[in-house]
């Protein structure tokens, strides 16, 4: 478990980083918190010729409050966002999702940007960002590109960044007043990757759902955003949700065929996703009503 040989590069400004990424092309791999990449290197499953360390680039480790969004630097450690006062006030879904990410020690090193760019479909943060329609900000020597969450995740461990691009920020809109959110997960042990997880944020006005957002992790090659299930919920009066919940859960997993693994055969994983969907919606609604 020693990495294959690579050249270690440590740019110290953003422009130097972008030039390095461009110059190394396919041979370069960017290192953020290293919590996924280092094991891959050690097991020789990833064999980049150049490892480009982002940890010395200034300005990528802050959380900026724009008044409507939080603009989170790619190098913000997961634990920092989890404890951030603005994060806790405005992004309760993200903060709850983070509590399921591995263990505190790992969250102190793992970064928001690294977690998202790694694009693990069982990971929590991508599902939360997908539910909230976060915007992913990428930079290259050519300039900035803003990528909606719906387009960022392409497949297992594959994002839509193109050659020369680095994820530098993610912009997440405030959760609206009168909304409730919940992140429900089932994992074999505390801190494990989810066998399945459901992220939801529901906005209620005068007893009626005006906006319902749902994303599932662990059930496909990317975080799954079941718009048909959201459509059933939207416009529904809160009192009628319970009777529609099984239908919502079923529709949420329609068309999914997650591949079986050691811990979760396909049928079981779908059942979990449906149950977690029901639980998340119930809890989010409860919270929304309490807020109202």
């Amino acid at each position: 478990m020693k990495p294959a040989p690579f050249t270690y590069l440590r740019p110290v400004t953003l422009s130097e980083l972008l030039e390095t990424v461009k110059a190394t092309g396919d041979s370069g791999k960017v290192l953020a918190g290293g919590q996924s990449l280092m094991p891959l290197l050690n097991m020789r499953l990833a064999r980049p010729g150049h490892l480009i360390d982002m940890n010395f680039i200034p300005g990528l480790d802050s959380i900026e409050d724009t008044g409507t969004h939080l603009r989170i630097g790619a190098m913000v450690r997961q634990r920092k966002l989890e404890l951030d006062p603005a994060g806790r006030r405005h992004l309760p879904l993200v903060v709850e999702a983070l509590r399921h990410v591995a263990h505190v020690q790992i969250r102190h090193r793992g970064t928001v940007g690294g977690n998202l760019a790694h694009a693990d479909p069982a990971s929590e943060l991508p599902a939360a960002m997908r539910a909230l329609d976060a915007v992913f900000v990428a930079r290259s020597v050519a300039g900035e590109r803003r990528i909606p969450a719906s387009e960022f995740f392409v497949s297992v461990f594959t994002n839509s960044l193109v050659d020369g691009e680095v994820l530098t920020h993610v912009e997440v809109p405030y959760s609206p007043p009168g909304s409730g959110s919940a992140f429900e997960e089932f994992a074999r042990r505390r801190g494990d990757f989810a066998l399945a997880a459901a992220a939801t944020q529901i906005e209620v006005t005068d007893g009626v759902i005006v906006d319902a957002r749902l994303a599932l992790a662990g059930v496909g090659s990317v975080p799954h955003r079941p718009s048909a299930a959201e459509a059933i919920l939207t416009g529904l009066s809160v009192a009628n949700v319970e009777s529609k919940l099984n239908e919502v859960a079923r529709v949420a997993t329609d068309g999914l065929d997650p591949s079986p693994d050691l811990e979760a055969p396909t049928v079981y994983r779908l059942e979990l996703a449906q149950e977690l969907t029901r639980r998340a919606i119930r809890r989010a609604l409860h919270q929304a009503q309490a807020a109202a």
Partner: protein
Amino acid sequence: MTTTSPSFRYISKSRPATEHQRFVLGRGTYVADITRPGMLHVAGVASPVPAGRIRDLDLEPARRAPGVVAVVGGKELAERTNPLRQYLDVNVIWRPLAAEYVSYAGEWVAAVVAESRALAEDAAELVTFEIEPQPPVMDSESAMAPDAPLVHPEHGSNIAYQRTFTWGPVEDDFAAAARQASLRLRWGRSSTVPLETFGVLAEWDPGREILDVWASIQMPQYAEQLASALRLPLSSIRVHYDVDVGGSYGVKRGIKQSVLAGYLSLKTHRPVRLIEDRIDNMRAGDAHGPDRIFDVSVAFDDDGKVRSLKIRTVDDEGSYPGRSPLQMGKPVGAIVGPYTIGSVEYEAVAVMTNKTSQVAVRGFGQAPTNYALESAMDLVARTLDMDPVEVRRRNLIPAGAFPYKIPSGTSYDSGDYETVLDRTLELAGLSRWRERQKEVRAQGKLAGIGVATCLEPSGGNALFEALFNPKNKKTTFPEAIRITVDGHGLVTATIGFSSAGQGHETTVAVLVGEELGVAPEMVRVMRATSQDGMPTQSPVASRMTIVIGEAIKLAASKLRRKMISIAVHELGLREDEDLWLDGDGVHGPGGDVVLAWDEIVEIAHRHYHRLPKMMEPGLSSTAVAQVPTGGTLPTEDGQVHMYPCYAFSAHLAFAVVDPATGGVDLEDYATVHDCGTVINPDMVRGLVLGGIAHGIGAALYEEFRYSDDGQPLSTTFIEYLLPSMSEIPPVRMEEHCTPSPLTSHGQKGIGEGGYMAAPAAVASAVNDALYPLGVRIDSVPMRPSAIRDLIRTATSEGER
């Protein structure tokens, strides 16, 4: 704590383990902390497939790689070393590197020695070879079929061992019993997976012709096996036991790795260190545990009394059986557990498959057997619709029946099982648990209360070696101690083995302190090398406190007599006066010190003119103890007196099962254990708690799995799930004390019982939770997906 043991000065008193301080401060000295000048590193070249002949092995490109000093293939090693030891009478050649054919995926076919491990791994990728693939044998039952492909063709069968033992009138008892019931159980392939993998550093000194070995080892006769395999005189092997071992519970027996490192050092004349990485350890470390199928039949009456038992167990040993099949032999010494079962039929079958080899794991096979026995007791209760606790109570050996000889020929030394069981029920607060069970059920979840008892053999009279292989006549299982009072009056106790976290330095200091009447803090514990003449069987089989306790008692008594003799001579007293020794000196009949400790030291070390005539100068005493009750061989019909001492414990577990996810949450756990005299209560509780955590892992989480085509699927901690703090419930715990009449201070072993009982208790709790649905899970680990399958079938709610 209930205690009927004699009062002690230091024994049974709470005391932090002295060695734990260096462990928590990061000041331990593990094998990876030891470096030698010019040291080289090893990486293995692993077979990608589980079975087939090796062809066209090309080592040359790797030999030319940067930093490489040597590359060795299996054939070279086979020419220069002897095969590793097999404990069964089998025709299986086991070597550190496969020479002719591979027998599991991950098996090493070559080894690269380089200036760093990273360079060795780089070069290992350059070794090329072909394997003519053969269909692998991955299932123990199909491996027994006459037409199954052979893992080792030279053996002629995949069955390494098969014998049926019959103790007592089994068929008569089955015929006479009012009822019978049967079940089939599966114990998944789990193990002890310590934080520290196996590591070894070997350094050949060609001038002195000594091979120095530092290793993360917990194994009897390690030096002897190294000498045999490396074709060296035993006197040229020096194993250093002052190496901290970062966890073991049986698995640290890296004989393959050690012989390889030793050979590579002999070849290169440089120190060679081999530290397994996690993949090496999980895929090819010979470190898996039992992997069993049980078929159990039980004959019983309407009052719940069990008359007889039939157990058939098929154990998947993996490729090289080594010592692992003997793990079906140890349970023979406690085959009826704590119960008055009158007769037993026991069939043990050891099967070879294309998996990495098994090794000794905590309890040496008895955790799975106890799971089978306790599952049978639950089955009796369910069949009769009786309380599972009550069924156990009715079958317990009564307190007045000791020594109690079980049908297989072993005598239990002492116990008070019913008292311990009752106290466990009180400690748990069973009526409170029943209330909680109703409450959980009212919330739409399932809740169960599980019970298990456990009889824990200790002392290590390892006669399963002779039972399973009559050519093996070994009956000596010794342990040695040397106690020295130095020229400054300080006490040093020297032991001849390494420790893997069991706290022996504290145990030995307490026992020596007790015997000499000096504070344990004043006793320094040191470790000899294998060349220092200290016979040892190593700390296996929960034996150390028993056997070293006896050795300490013997050695200390000689030393005491000598110090008192010096006082008698110095003061002109009579030998038969009532004199006694402690750290202050020799006390007279009135209790006053008549000759101070320091004065005795002065005489013994420096004033020969004051010593009794012909007395040796100095104050040093060595003793070697044999395991109590040891020294007889099994009879031909399979009667055997196995271990000397038998601890007992009762365990209760409270499990909540989420019917929607199949997830199991252990909410509560209670246990009372009786290991006789407790030497150090803090350490005993640590052992029990660790054992329970380990058992919860086996019950719910841990398994080494393989694909049908023989690929290992659990090679990192992503797939092999160890429970962490979050998965272990709070454990209520208490000691009871029924001293052993056989040991120096009434002590018994306690290192394994938590692990033997917890899987059975947790399985019992999960099945109690599922009972209202009419389903039962009979395999461990109990995965949520499997539990959910049962619930879905039972409730037919899959259509929701």
